[in-house]
Structure formats: structure tokens, C-alpha cells
């Protein structure tokens, strides 16, 4: 296998010659040059306009990921056959001579003119004649011939020696010169095989080309040797490829190509966290099988691939294989990176203890080797890991004396700035922001950190970091109850930055968006959003698990609202088994809270209470996210309400409200206020409740959490109704009616909102309340109407749940 030269490259050289000879017509120049450069120099001149296909039109034919692999696909197809050349050159007419001749014909003529191994040699020997003369040559020329302009053997363009084409020509010439004879012969054989598919076409055009015309020596000697002997010699020299087209022995691929493809794959794997599409992978493996030397990078690719496929044992096997072949990389010990990869894989497969041990070993090895890059990365990872698995790290902290999170972050930040590791710096800042948010500290401090990180990202053009940045932003907006801002951040990310960031971020953003839509009751839209994810990327085991969880959560939410408890139980039994680190803590909490809700709907209050208590204890122990604690407190208060002892939840509600207020967790605050109002209602403090609710409701509507809004409305209705009950029916009839009307309006709104989220039980409850209210107001007809609606709804839901 040659290092650079392949039959495809011979094709490109021939094409450049055609170009230099002026055979390429004007309209074809740009496509031809672009074709050559994109394959030879790996730079596409006509970069497609930066229009992301996401998600403006759901019917777009190419999902974004298809674009990322298209380059590799076309590279492989060029390596394997001439068809790509035909596709590019076929449409154009040749610039000279006979009419009706296409550029493709000229190109084939060039290729078929190479009819012996010696002709190939001459082909390469002739390459320098396409180059412009050097100054030295010109000087010599002047010395010999006077001022006559130097004559070139070819009319047309003279390629400058320093131009990309000139460099390519010179390089090819040199490479061929350096080939050993048998490699050159192999190249020739591969070239014959590569060209052979065009033989039929070429023979139609040139009838004198016979069976053996790929080698003129054979043609010339056939009369003397006789057919059988010639065939025998041809088979001897060219192997079986002549008669058996499927027979793969010669590999047309060069080390250079393989390495380029591998690097491309690794880059994609790293940048997008994708897997190689299976078709492409198969083609690539077929190429590799033919090549003699397998670069060790290939093991890395297969390691990444199996890792993403979730094949634990093979992953470790491949990882060890890769690092066994790559103990030394650029003359530096590489051991720490092996350990680091191992740790990451371990943690990814859920072996957290092993992962920590491994990462600590990485840290010490990196210290020994004075590899700051590795060390910083490892520390950063440890920090994030500690955030996700506080229990495991706590033991460690005690033993290793690592200081508190904040200090670690500050250290990382300082280090990153010192060493110019921008990614680390930015992620440390974002980490600090997130930490601040979760412990309920100043919003402005968090914002400051975000802005600083954003500045670094923009300054250093670190597109891949955009995912993290925007995910922190969405969290912030969510906490501030600005749902539309949060949606906006998600959309911005998906439209503009998704193609530059890893797939994980894209999936998370999509999931978040789906969650927001589900909260608004737009279940179908949420599903549609999730469906838009690239199918190939879902071949990642982790990603597909995560994607299924998102779908499950949306579905569960709907099932709960539909009161379809059997289906919900079924889903829950699956969701609860999900690995805790597949999702962010928020997602996990979501599942838990829905579990609690399901339990409560089933009436299993003991279990619900136990679960809430357990979760609360855990959170307190882990010093977890304050938002989650608030939500748990609210849940607990709600539980008391459900068992008919709302007053017991008073302290809980107040605590929740004050916590949420302090941490500016606005959606939780509104929810807590709702709980408080409920208690007030229960204590018959209707006016106070109504006052609270009226103040809170408009803000709550902003947060797009429709269910909470509906609940608040129903509470408001209760409060109004209570107030109506308080006034004397006789004396203040008008006021009573007023209250009753307000209650009716509130009930209407609540009903409408509950209808949006399709919550059957609450809808029924509202309808029942409406009916009662109407009866109390003396409007029996409408009361009957509501009652009829109630029954219809019940029936419908029964039918649906069947």
C-alpha cells in the first residue's frame, strides 16, 4: 500500500493535466477545481450556505447529521470507483476538437493512454513538465537561448510550483519516485482494476480496444504467445481480478486516505458524540481489510464506536488495544490518557467506584508526567463527577482533603486562565453559575459568570461550548419562570449551534423543549419535536436510552393527566429503573415526582409520603438543588391537602414559599403560594387566599406551567366561593352574586387550563364544582348542562383508558 498515491489520485492528476492543457471548458472550471480541491486538499470551495435544516421544515430530506458524514461517503466512493468522476465530468462538453465529446471522454482518453506499467512511470515522469520553470531554470534557459521565451511542452496553463496544484503534482511525482518497485506494480494493478469498469464504455467509443487492451504488452505479445498462454501470463501478473470482478486483492487505498478518514471520524466522534453510520462503517471496514497496515487510530475509532453502542466488554478490549499500540505518542508517554479514557468509560457504564479510582490514578500519573492539560481535565471531570455523585466523592473528600466545590472551581478557573485552556475556563465559569443557582445564591452573580463565559466563547470562537452555555441559560430562565425565554434559548441552540456541538447537547435541548411543550399540554408537538432527532445519532446506546426517557416522561405526564393509571404504572416501572446519570438530576426528580403523583392519584398516600420523606432526606444529605427541595416541600403540603389535613402543611408551604422567594425560584414560589392559599381556604381565610392568588396568578401564567395555573384558578374559585358563603345570602345578595360569578369565571379558566393539559380528573372536579355553583346560583339548566358534560367526559375518559 502506498502512502499517498492511489488510483483515484492518478485520476485527479489526469484531471489537473486536462485543466492545465486547457481542455476544461469555462463553465466546468469551477466544478472541476472544486471537485479536485475538496478531495485532494480537503477544502470545499463552495461551502454550502449556512442554513440549518432544523426544524423549520420537518419534511427536509436531509437531517443535519447526513451532512456531517457526506464528506466521508464521497471520499470513500471516490476511492472505490470512477463513478464520482463521471458524475462530475459527464455533464460538460470538452473544450476542443470533436463536437459531442464530453469532458469525461477526454478524461478516459487520458486514463486509457496509460496502457503499461511503463506508461504509468512516464505519466509520473511527465508531471514536472506542467510546472512553470523556476528562476534557476529560466536563468539557465536565458544563458543558453538568449531572450527567447521558454518553451513548454504543453500549451495552456503553467502551474506555479508553489500553487496547491503545483505542490500536488510535485508531491505525487516525488512519491512515485520513492515507491518500491513492487508497490509501484501494485499501484498499477490497482489502477487497472479501478479503471476496468469503464472498459465497456470506452470500447463502445473505441471499437479497436480489445479484451486485453488494459496492457499493451499483452496485446502486442498475444499473436506470438497464443491466447491461452497470454491469459495465463495475464493472470499471473494481474491476479484474479481480471476474470472475477468480486475478487478483492489489491487495495486502491493509501495510508494517507485511511488516516484522513480516521481523523475525520475521530473528529466527528469527538465533536458530535455521534456514531459512524453503519453503512459508512461497513464500507470503511472493507477498505481497511484490504489495506496492509492498520493505523492504531482505527482502534480508537472502534473503541469509541463500541463505547457509544454500549458494548462494555468490547469497549474495554478496544481501549486496551488502542493504548497498547499507542503507548508513546509524539514521544510523550500516553499512559495518563489511557487511564483517563478508562475512567470516563467506567463511569459511563455505571462503575462509579472504579471510575473514581481510575481518575485519581490519572491525576497522580499526570502530576508525575507534568501533563497539565491532562491534569486539569481530570480535575474538572472529578468536580463534575462529584456534583453528580456526591456520596461517592464525599468519602474521597474526607480522605484526600480536597477542598470545597467552590474552591475547586476557583482553582480550576485560575489554572485554566494561566494555561490558556479556554474550554476549561468557560466550563468552570458555567459550573460556578450552575452551582450558585442550585444553592439558591444570587442570580446576578450567576448571570455575571454566564456573561464572562459567553465572552470567552465568543472571543475564542468555541462553538462546541455553546451547548453548555445555553443549557445554563435555559436553567436560569426556567428558574426565573420565564418560560418563553427558556424556549427561545433552546430554539436558538437547535437552529444555530446544534451542528457544531455534541449530540448530547442537542438531545438535551430537544428534551427540554419537549418538556416545556408537554407542560403546556402540547403533547403531540412534544412528540413531534422528539421525533425530529437524527435517527443515526440515536444509535448511541446512551442517547437512545435518554431519548426514550424523554418520550416516556412526556407520555407519563399525559397518562397521568388522562388518569390512565395502569399505563402510567407500566411506564413508571420502566422509567424508575433508568440509570440515574442518564438524565440530569432534574429529569430524575421529574420522574420521582410523577411517581409521587401517581401514588397519590391511586390513593396510596402512605407510600407517597414515605417516598417524599426519603427524597427530602437524600436532598438534605447531599446538599442538593434547592429548587428540588422546594418542590418536594410543595408536594408534601399537597399530600396533606389530599388526605384532608391541609392545615398540617402550613409550615411546609410557608417554608417553601420563603425558600423559593429567597432563591428567586419563581415558578415554585407561585406553586407554594397556591399551597398556602389552599391552607387559607381550609382555614376559611378566603379573602386572604383570594388576595394572594390574584396577586400571583398573572405572574404564574408567564411561567407556562399550565397545570399550576389551572390549580391556582381552581383555588381562586374556591376562595371566591368561600367568600360567597361567608356573606349573608339575604343582606348582601349582590355581593354574593358577584363572588359567585367571579368563582364561576375562575372555574371556567381553571376548566379551560385543565382541558389544555387534558387532565380528566381535575376537569371533572371543575365541572362538578361548576354544576354545584350553578345550582347554588339557582341556574338549574346550566347545572344540568355541566352535569351532562361531566358524565360525557367521564365516559370519554373511560373509553380512552380502556
Amino acid at each position, binding site marked *: 500500500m502506498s502512502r499517498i498515491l492511489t488510483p483515484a489520485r492518478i485520476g485527479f492528476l489526469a484531471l489537473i493535466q486536462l485543466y492545465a492543457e486547457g481542455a476544461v471548458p469555462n463553465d466546468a472550471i469551477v466544478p472541476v477545481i472544486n471537485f479536485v480541491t475538496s478531495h485532494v486538499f480537503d477544502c470545499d470551495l463552495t461551502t454550502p450556505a449556512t442554513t440549518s435544516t432544523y426544524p423549520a421544515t420537518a419534511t427536509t430530506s436531509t437531517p443535519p447529521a447526513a451532512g456531517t458524514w457526506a464528506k466521508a461517503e464521497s471520499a470513500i466512493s471516490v476511492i472505490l470507483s470512477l463513478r464520482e468522476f463521471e458524475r462530475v465530468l459527464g455533464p460538460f462538453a470538452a473544450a476542443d476538437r470533436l463536437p459531442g465529446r464530453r469532458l469525461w471522454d477526454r478524461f478516459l482518453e487520458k486514463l486509457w493512454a496509460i496502457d*503499461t*506499467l*511503463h*506508461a504509468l*512511470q512516464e505519466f509520473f*515522469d511527465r508531471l514536472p513538465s506542467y510546472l512553470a520553470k523556476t528562476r534557476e531554470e529560466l536563468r539557465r534557459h536565458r544563458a543558453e537561448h538568449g531572450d527567447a521565451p521558454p518553451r513548454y511542452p504543453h500549451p495552456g496553463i503553467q502551474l506555479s510550483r508553489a500553487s496547491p496544484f503545483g505542490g500536488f503534482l510535485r508531491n505525487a511525482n516525488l512519491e512515485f*519516485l520513492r515507491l518500491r*518497485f*513492487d508497490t509501484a*506494480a501494485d499501484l*498499477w494493478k490497482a489502477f487497472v482494476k479501478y479503471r476496468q469498469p469503464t472498459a465497456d464504455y470506452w470500447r463502445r467509443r473505441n471499437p479497436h480496444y480489445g479484451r486485453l487492451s488494459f*496492457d*499493451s*504488452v*499483452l496485446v*502486442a*505479445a498475444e499473436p*506470438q*504467445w*497464443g491466447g491461452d*498462454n*497470454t491469459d*495465463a*501470463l495475464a493472470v*499471473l*501478473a*494481474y*491476479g484474479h481480478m481480471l476474470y472475477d470482478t468480486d475478487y478483492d486483492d489489491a487495495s486502491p487505498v493509501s495510508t494517507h486516505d485511511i488516516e484522513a478518514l480516521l481523523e475525520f471520524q475521530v473528529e466527528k466522534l469527538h465533536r458530535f458524540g455521534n456514531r459512524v453510520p453503519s453503512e459508512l462503517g461497513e464500507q470503511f471496514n472493507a477498505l481497511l481489510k484490504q489495506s496492509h497496515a492498520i493505523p492504531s487510530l482505527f482502534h480508537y475509532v472502534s473503541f469509541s464506536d463500541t463505547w457509544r453502542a454500549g458494548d462494555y466488554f468490547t469497549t474495554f478490549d478496544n481501549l486496551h488495544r488502542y493504548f497498547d499500540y499507542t503507548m508513546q505518542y509524539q514521544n510523550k508517554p500516553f499512559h495518563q490518557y489511557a487511564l483517563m479514557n478508562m475512567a470516563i468509560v467506567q463511569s459511563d457504564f455505571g462503575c462509579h467506584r472504579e471510575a473514581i479510582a481510575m481518575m485519581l490514578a490519572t491525576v497522580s500519573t499526570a502530576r508525575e508526567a507534568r501533563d497539565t492539560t491532562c491534569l486539569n481535565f481530570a480535575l474538572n471531570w472529578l468536580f463534575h463527577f462529584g456534583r453528580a455523585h456526591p456520596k461517592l466523592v464525599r468519602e474521597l473528600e474526607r480522605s484526600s482533603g480536597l477542598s470545597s466545590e467552590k474552591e475547586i472551581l476557583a482553582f480550576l478557573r485560575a489554572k485554566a486562565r494561566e494555561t490558556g485552556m479556554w474550554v476549561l475556563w468557560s466550563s468552570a465559569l458555567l459550573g460556578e453559575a450552575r452551582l450558585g443557582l442550585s444553592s439558591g445564591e444570587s442570580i446576578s452573580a450567576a448571570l455575571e459568570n454566564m456573561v464572562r463565559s459567553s465572552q470567552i466563547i465568543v472571543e475564542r470562537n468555541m462553538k462546541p461550548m455553546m451547548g453548555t452555555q445555553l443549557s445554563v441559560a435555559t436553567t436560569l430562565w426556567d428558574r426565573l419562570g420565564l418560560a418563553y425565554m427558556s424556549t427561545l434559548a433552546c430554539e436558538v441552540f437547535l437552529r444555530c449551534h446544534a451542528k457544531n456541538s455534541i449530540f448530547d447537547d442537542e438531545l438535551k435541548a430537544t428534551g427540554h423543549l419537549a418538556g416545556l411543550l408537554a407542560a403546556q399540554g402540547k403533547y403531540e408537538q412534544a412528540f413531534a419535536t422528539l421525533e425530529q432527532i437524527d435517527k443515526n445519532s440515536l444509535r448511541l446506546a446512551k442517547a437512545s436510552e435518554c431519548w426514550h426517557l424523554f418520550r416516556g416522561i412526556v407520555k407519563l405526564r399525559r397518562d397521568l393527566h388522562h388518569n390512565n393509571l395502569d399505563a402510567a404504572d407500566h411506564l413508571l416501572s420502566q422509567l424508575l429503573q433508568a440509570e440515574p446519570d442518564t438524565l440530569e438530576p432534574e429529569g430524575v426528580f421529574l420522574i420521582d415526582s410523577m411517581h409521587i403523583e401517581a401514588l397519590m392519584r391511586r390513593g396510596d398516600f402512605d407510600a407517597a409520603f414515605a417516598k417524599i420523606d426519603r427524597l427530602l432526606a437524600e436532598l438534605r444529605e447531599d446538599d442538593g438543588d434547592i429548587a428540588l427541595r422546594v418542590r418536594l416541600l410543595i408536594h408534601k403540603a399537597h399530600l396533606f391537602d389530599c388526605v384532608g389535613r391541609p392545615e398540617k402543611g402550613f409550615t411546609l408551604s410557608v417554608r417553601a414559599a420563603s425558600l423559593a422567594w429567597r432563591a428567586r425560584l419563581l415558578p415554585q414560589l407561585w406553586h407554594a403560594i397556591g399551597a398556602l392559599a389552599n391552607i387559607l381556604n381550609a382555614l376559611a381565610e378566603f379573602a386572604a387566599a383570594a388576595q394572594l392568588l390574584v396577586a400571583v396568578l398573572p405572574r404564574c401564567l408567564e411561567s407556562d406551567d399550565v397545570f399550576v395555573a389551572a390549580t391556582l384558578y381552581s383555588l381562586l374559585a374556591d376562595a371566591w366561593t368561600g367568600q360567597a358563603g361567608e356573606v349573608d345570602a339575604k343582606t348582601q345578595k349582590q355581593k354574593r352574586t358577584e363572588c359567585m360569578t367571579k368563582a364561576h369565571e375562575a372555574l371556567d379558566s381553571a376548566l379551560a387550563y385543565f382541558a389544555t393539559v387534558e387532565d380528566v380528573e381535575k376537569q371533572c372536579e371543575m365541572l362538578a364544582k361548576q354544576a354545584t355553583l350553578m345550582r347554588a346560583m339557582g341556574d338549574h339548566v346550566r347545572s344540568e348542562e355541566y352535569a351532562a358534560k361531566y358524565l360525557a367526559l367521564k365516559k370519554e375518559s373511560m373509553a380512552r383508558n380502556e
Partner: protein
Amino acid sequence: MGLSAKDSVHLKEALQIAVVKCSERCLYQSAKWAAELLDALPEQPDEKLGASTGPGNYVHPAFYPNPDPEEAALEARELNRYLLAKSFFDCKEFDRCAAVFLPESLLAGLLSAKASDITSPRGKGKAISTSASDQQSLPEISQKSLFLALYAKIISGEKRKDEDSEMIMGPHDLGTVTNKQLLVVSRFLDRWFAERKTDDGEQPTSYGFLEYLYGMVLVKEKNDSVALDYLMQSVHLFPWNWGCWLEITNLISRIEQLNKIAPHMPQNIMSFIFHANTAVNLYQQGQDLAASLSDLLDIFPTSSFLLTCKALLNYHSKDLLTAEQDFSNLLALHPHRLDSLDHYSNILYVLNLRPKLAFLAHLCSSIDKFRPESCVVVGNYYSLLSLHEKAVQYFRRALTLDRTCLSAWTLMGHEYVELKNTHAAIESYRRAVDVNRRDYRAWYGLGQTYEVLEMHAYALWYYKKAAGLRPWDGKMWQAVGSCLQKMGRDRDGIKALKRALLADSYYESTASSFGSGGPIDRTAQMDPEVLLQIANMYDRLDEEDEAKAYMELCVAQEDGGAAGADTAGLGDSVAIHHDSPGGPASDGEGGEKEGGHEGTGVTVATSKARMWLAKFAMRAEDYATANRLATELCQDGVEVEEAKALIREARAMMENLDGLG
């Protein structure tokens, strides 16, 4: 020369026996050669009947037990050990193979005993009688096993020698590494033969193989005459061992020697083949040789070996196109055979058939890229492309694979000359000559290199060697002549150059009489360069008439046909001087042949000759001729200025004369 059916059956049987016997002794190459020859014998129609008569109880003579009862008994007794040793040999565990029959202690004892023997030179008989008690007697084993063991010893020594050798042409590669096992084997065989002789004064029966082995050892020890004796004994005892014949071929360095030993050879077909092969290797040519080769080819029509010989014969008689066709046919008949394709590549190189040479190189490297022949072919191809470094690389590879690869050494020398590395070139040539003293190209190359270094006296010696090896090659004599000329020995130079002219015409005649029918356009006329050289030397010797004659002859070469008469006249003057038995080389024939050919056209040499003639005519006051010649020069566009000056002068003189007249 057809064979009768009976002869054919006998021949076939003999060859079959030869293959079996050689294989039994692990003489692979000889076995291969015999088997190839056997395969080349055409099928006899009635033969199959004979074989099918009794498939059950028919035993081929090749598998008969040894006719000598004593040997047969020995062989039967040690069959197990023999089989063991043979398997070891086949697995290339040579030392182990030898140790099966000849334990190391025995051989060591042999060495030390012999050493003490040498210190006390008291007569052979005494030494043996006394040593019979204290030194172990030779083991009682069959000759077959003994041969196998000793042969394994030698092969193991060769292998070690190759391993010990330094990189080709490296600083420590002095060619002094020797086969350390030769000594012990030679002692052993010496004693073995001596003991057998002392038994009853007469040589008891033996099968020729041990003689062959001893001959081989002696050759390696450079004891040529004794070696030849043993080898001759061997071929008398068992003529079907081709390896033995080859050893004899290598020992013969001159045709006279061949003719001398020819009567002592056994008279059979092998001897015939040997004679033809040796003659070809000695660059002989002529009808007799061609006839004997075609006789052999009648018997073995598809024998690759004989076809190669025929092609080489054509090559050596400079009939390159026919040789090329022969090789091409050979390639088609035996596509997997790499042997002697290096010669084919030389022919393609000389004919400048680049695509074909590229194809051949491709073919060879597809078959086996680690054969010396393949490497030489590839090297030749690169040399043709003027990629001399790469060519050297491939020749070196060939030599690493086989240090005795003669053509690689020579060709590498050529490449070093191209690379202007004269020291390396000389060393390469020297190695080639050391491998085979009959390689005229290496001698010639040495001469050329020294000539480049302007050491003419030195170069002359090598040129003479080359000319001695190929007395009928004009190029050699021309080189000798030029060398002599540069040394100022004009008389001798003229002699040598005339001989070169003669040699060319001799080739002319032999090539055409060989009846190959191929178009011959080489050496058709005398080389104007040579003629000019001769003329110049005569000029320096102040023999103007001779010089003028040769100058005119030189000019006449421009248009061969018109000068026919002239040439015939001057041909005599060549004939006068030729001082060797010209034999079939008749000048008249050469002259006629020339007449039939196109001339060379204007060359530098002829123009110079014409200029000289014009000036000569001026001196001789033959202004008309001078004017004509100078005008011709002007027409040819060579040295126009000088020619015009001559014309002016001549015209002026003519006018003067006219005026005077």
C-alpha cells in the same frame, strides 16, 4: 535426432531414477532439473500400456533395493535413522540432520587427530595404521546416509557463512568469510576414500555421489585439478546428477580446456547436454553448437533449460531480436519460471523495449519478489529509466539474497559507473570476476572504469582479458585499440582495431548463416568511428596513403551501397593484416553483405574524415577534390566555417592555376 521408442523408454526410466536418487539425497536442484527434462520428453503412445499391465506388482526400477548386498543391508538397517535425518534436512535443521549419523564428537576427534597427524609427517600408511587404534574408526553407515549427513554439514556451513557475512559492499564486507565446515568434511572424505583404497587397492563400488561431494568441497577449497578428477569420476559413475556437471562447467574457463576433457567424458546424452551448455557459457557460437542444441530440442521439445540455452546462444552471437523472441516464447511456455529471466531483461534493456521490460519486472515481482532474478530484472528496469540509485538498491537486494549472483555484481558495477562512484564500481566488478572469471562484461567494465580514471595501462590488461573471452566481439578489440592508441602504441592499436573490424564482419556472417531469419541490421557495415581511428593513427605514423585509404573508407560508410566497390578493394587491406585464423569469416561475404545495407548517413566521424580528406587534397594540390569535399561538408552543415574557408582557398588556388595555365 529422434529416439527410438526403446531408447525413449530407457531415457525416461533413467531420468526417473535420477529424480528419485537425487531427491533421496536432498539434491533438490538436480532433482528439479532432471524432472523438468523428464517432463519435456514427449509422451510415447504405447507407453501407457506398459505401465498399466500390472499396477499391483509392478515396482519401478527407481525403487529397487540397492544392488550391492552390503549397502542394501546397511540401508535396511538404518532406514529409521535415514528417514529421521531426511526429515530434518527437509525442515532445514541441517546440523541436527548431520548429527543423526555423525555425532559431533566424532567429527571433532577427526579434526584433532588430523592435526596431530600433520605435525608428524611420517608417511601416510604409518599414520593410518597407528591412528587406527587411538582414533575412532569411521562409522559403518551406508553411502547414502553418509552423503546426506556430510551434505547437510556443508549446507549448514554455507548457511552460517551467509549469516556471518556483512552487508553487501559494507565496510566489513571483504568476502573473506569462509565455510567452516568444509575442513571437517574434506578430512572425513579424504580418509573415507583413503580407507576404501587401502582395503584392496582397487576402488570398490560406489555411486558417484560421494565423489561429487568431495569434488564440490575441493572446488570450494580452490583445489581445482583434484576436484575435476573427482567430479569426472562421479559423472562416470552416475551421469544423471546435473549438479555435478554444473560444477565441471564452472571449472572450465576456456574452450580449449573443454575440448581437452571432452574425450574423457562418458558418452551419453548428459555429456552431450553438458557440452552444449558449457559451450554456451563460454560464449561460443557457430553452426555446430546450434545444430547440437536443435538436436537436443528434438528430443526434449519443450525443455525450458534447452530453450534458455538456445536463447543465450542467440544473445551471445548478438542476434538480440531472435534471442528476445526465444525468451518471450519461453516465458509463454513456462510462465512461472524465473530462472535466467535476468538475461532476458538484459536483452530487453539493450533493445530498449521499456514497456516489455516493465511488464517483465511486474510479472517477476508478482511471482516472487524475493528472488535474485526478480531483483535483477527490476534493477535493469530502473537502470533503463536512469534511476541509478534505485537500480543499485535492487541489485544489492539481489546480492543479499544470493551472493553468487553474477549478473547482479556486474550490473551493479555498471550502475556505480553511472553514478560516478568508480571505487564502488571497481569493487563490484572485481567481485563479479571473483565469482566467475568468465564474465567478459565485468572485465570490460573494469577496463572502462580504469580508462575513466585515465589509467590506460591498467585498463588495457582488463580489456585484453575481455577480448580473450570474446575474441570475436569487435567492441572488445575496439576498446583494446583505443587504449593502445591513448598509450601511444599506434601500431598495436591499428592491429587491434583492424581485428575489431574483422570481428564485426565475422559476426555478420555467423549470424546470417545461423538461419534464424530475423532482420539483422546491426554491425552491418564497418564502424566509421573505428575506421577514423585507424586512419588517424596512420596519420600520426605519417603513413598518409594508408590514412587516406581509411579516411575514404570511412566516408564511404555514409552510403553503403555506392561504396561497395571501394569497400571491397579496401577489405583486402584489412585482410592483409588479420592475424588470426579467420576461419569462416570471408571478407568477400562481409563486403557483399555491406553492399546490401543502407549507409550510416553523415556522422561526426565521417565529417571529420571528409575534412581531413579535403585538407589532404589541398596539400596534394588536388583543389577540385578539395572543393568538392568542402562543398559536401557545407551541405551537411558540419563545421561550415572551416569548410567555407577551405572552399575559398581552393577556388583561389584553382583560379590561380587557371590564371597560370
